[in-house]
C-alpha cells in the first residue's frame, strides 16, 4: 500500500530525513519510535505534504501512485490521514461543520454526491460512540479551548469520520489519561480492516499494549536504524535507546 524508498528531506537547509525506506502493506500496523528530534513528526509531515519540507531524494508510492506528486488535499482525498501531534484551533468553525466540509470535499474528489444531511448525522452518531466523544464538544469551535486529551480524541473522531486508507497517528497517546488512551486505542482497533493501514508514532509501549503493531521501527537521526516485531517495543521500554545507538555507532566505525 505504502512504499517509501530512500526518502530524504530537509527543512530550512537542514537535512532531517536521511534515507528512509519502509514498506507497509494493507491490514498492517507499524509503530515508529525513537528519541525526541529523530524525525518522526517530520516523516509524518512529509507524507502529508506540509509546506516547508523539501524532498531531496527518494520516492513514496501510495497504492501505486506517486504520493509526492499530490497536493496536501489530494493526499487526504486519496486516503491519507494525519492525526496531528499539535492540532490547531479554528475559531468559529465547529468540528461538525469542519467534518461536513471535509467529507464533501473528499466525496467530490471521488466523484460522489454531497452526503445527505441525514446520513451525515447518522455517521456522526456512530463515530461519536466509537471514540466516546461528547456532542457538545463537536459543536464548539474546533480545538478552541479543548483540553489536550479532548484535542487528541477529536483527531481520532475525525479519522473515524474520514475512514482513511492510511492513518498516521503522531503521538496521539501523549496527554491522554488511562481511560482516554484505552478509548482511543479501541477506536483505532475498530477502524482497522484488512484494507487499511496505520502508522503509529509513539514514545510509549503502553499504547502498543492496546494497538498491537505488526512491526516496530526505531528512527534515529533521520534513519530507521532498527526494525522488529512488537517485542522490540518491549525491549525499548526496558532498556531505552542507548543500546541501539551504540549498535549504530559501532556499525558506522
Amino acid at each position, binding site marked *: 500500500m505504502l512504499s517509501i524508498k530512500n526518502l530524504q528531506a530537509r527543512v530550512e537547509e537542514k537535512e532531517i530525513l536521511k534515507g528512509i525506506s519502509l514498506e507497509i502493506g494493507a491490514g498492517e500496523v507499524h509503530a515508529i519510535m525513537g528519541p525526541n528530534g529523530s524525525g518522526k513528526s517530520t516523516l509524518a509531515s512529509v507524507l502529508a*505534504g506540509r509546506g516547508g519540507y523539501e524532498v531531496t531524494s527518494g520516492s513514496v508510492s501510495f497504492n501505486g501512485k506517486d504520493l509526492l506528486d499530490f497536493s496536501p488535499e489530494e493526499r487526504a482525498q486519496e486516503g491519507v490521514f494525519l492525526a496531528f501531534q499539535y492540532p490547531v484551533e479554528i475559531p*468559529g468553525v465547529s468540528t461538525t*461543520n469542519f467534518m461536513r466540509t471535509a467529507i464533501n470535499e473528499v466525496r467530490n474528489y471521488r466523484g460522489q454526491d454531497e452526503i445527505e444531511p441525514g446520513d451525515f448525522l447518522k455517521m456522526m452518531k456512530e463515530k461519536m460512540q466509537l471514540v466516546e466523544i461528547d456532542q457538545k464538544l463537536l459543536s464548539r*469551535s474546533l480545538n478552541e479551548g479543548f483540553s489536550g486529551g479532548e484535542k487528541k480524541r477529536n483527531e481520532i473522531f*475525525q479519522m473515524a469520520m474520514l475512514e482513511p486508507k492510511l492513518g498516521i497517528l503522531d503521538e496521539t497517546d501523549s496527554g491522554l489519561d488511562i481511560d482516554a488512551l484505552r478509548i482511543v486505542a479501541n477506536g483505532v482497533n475498530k477502524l482497522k480492516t484488512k484494507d487499511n493501514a496505520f502508522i503509529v508514532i509513539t514514545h510509549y509501549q503502553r499504547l502498543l499494549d492496546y494497538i498491537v503493531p505488526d512491526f516496530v521501527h526505531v528512527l534515529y537521526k533521520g534513519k530507521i536504524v532498527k526494525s522488529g516485531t512488537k517485542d522490540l517495543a518491549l525491549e525499548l521500554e526496558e532498556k531505552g535507546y542507548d543500546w541501539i545507538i551504540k549498535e549504530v555507532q559501532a556499525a558506522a566505525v
Partner: protein
Amino acid sequence: MAEDNKLLESLTQSEYKYGFVTDIEHESLAPGLTEETVRFISATKNEPEWLLEWRLNAYRHWLTLTTPTWQNVKFPVINYQDIIFYSAPKQKVKLNSLDEVDPELLKTFEKLGISLDEQKMLSGVAVDAVFDSVSVATTFREKLHEVGVIFCSMSEAVREHPDLVKKYLGSVVPFTDNYFAALNSAVFSDGSFCFIPKGVRCPMELSTYFRINASNTGQFERTLIVAEDSAYVSYLEGCTAPMRDENQLHAAVVELIVLDDAEIKYSTVQNWYPGDKDGKGGIYNFVTKRGNCLGKNSKISWTQVETGSAITWKYPSVVLKGDNSIGEFYSVAVTNNYQQADTGTKMIHVGKNTRSRIVSKGISAGFSQNTYRGQVKVLKRASGARNFSQCDSLLMGDTCGAHTFPYIEVDNPSAQVEHEATTSKIGEDQLFYCNQRGINTEKAVALIVNGYCKDVLNHLPMEFAVEAQKLLAISLEGSVG
C-alpha cells in the same frame, strides 16, 4: 451549519457575477448638476412645493461645502458635472400590477436572484426593487396593508403619505449633516419608505434591492423607516451593479426612527461592483445611515456585510435618546485588490441606562486598505450608559492595510465603556490542517473567514447569511497564494 456547506459548494466561480448590463431604454437627464436638475427631478415626481424647497435649500447648502478629506480613503476629485443625476427605465407612468412591469426588468431581478413574482416567492420577504433612479416594483403590498404596514417607494410615499414623510424626512439626517447627505437631499430620486404602526410586528421581512444599470449615472436614494410604539420590523438591503471601467457614485441616506419599546433590525449585504483586480472601475459607496432611538426601551440593530464597492465610506449610527434604549452594530467589511473601506459606527448615548454594542470584523487582502472608525459618545445626562466594542482585523498577505480608529468620549462618570481590538492572520498551520482533511486552500480560507465572522453573520436573517457567506468567499478568492 448546513448553510456553511452550501456556501462552500458554490465557490467555483471567481468573477463578479452580477456585472451584466440590462439592455433597456432609459430616460435620462443630461449629465450635470444645477438648480434646474433639482427642479427637474422634483417636477418629474410631481412633488409638493415644500419638498422642492427642501431640495433647493439642500442644493444651495451643498454648494457651500467641500468634499471631506478626513477619511482614510483616496480617490480622484469627482466632477459632478459628468454625472447623470436621473435615469429611469422607460415605462408607463403608473403601474397597477406587476404584470405591467417591463419583462426585461423582471428578468434582470430574476437573474439577480430576486423574484418579484409573489407566487414564486417561497419565503415571506416583501421586496422593493430600485433600478437606477426609480423604484420599479414593490411586492406583497396588499398583505402588508392588511396589518397597516406601509411599504412603498419614496416617491409614492411623498404622494400618498405626505404628512408622515414631511414629519420624518431629514429628522435624523438633516441636509446640513455632511457633504453627501446634502447632495443626496438635493437630488434623491427614490428609495423605500416603511412605516410600522403602533403595536404591529411586521409579518414579513421587508427588503429593498438596489440595482445600478445605466452608465455614468449616480444613484441617490433615501430610505426612511419609522417604527411606532412597540412595533418591530426586520429590513434587508441588497445591491449590485454592472462591471464598468468608470467609477460610479452611490450616495444614499438612510434614516430610522424608533419610538417607545419598538425595534428596527436593519441588515445590509453590500455587493456593489468593486472594480477589477487592478483597481479600475467600481462604485463609490458614500452613504449616511443613522437611526434615532427616540422612545424608551427602543432598539436599533445594524448588521452589515460589506464586500463590494471600490470605496466604502459609511458609519451606520444610533442616537440613543430614549432611556434604556439599545444600539447595536455588527459589521463585516472585506476589502481585496485595490478596494478601500472606511467604515464603522457612532453610538451617541443621550438617555439614561442606554446600551450599545459594536462588533466589527475587518478583512483585508491584496493591496486594499480597511479602516474601522468608530465613535462612542456618552453625554452628561446618560447615567448608567454602557458600551462594549470589539474590533478585529484579519490580514491576508502583507501588502494590505488594516487600521482602527476608536474615538471614545465620556462625559458621565457612571458610564462603562469597554474596547477590545485584535489583529490576526490566517496561519499556515491552519491552512495545512484543513488541507490535510481534504479541503483545498481556497475553501479553507472561506471556512476560516466565515468562522471569524460568525458573531456578525449570526445576526443576519437566514437567507441573507447564506448569501453573505458566499460573497465573503467570492470576494477573497485568489487572496492567498
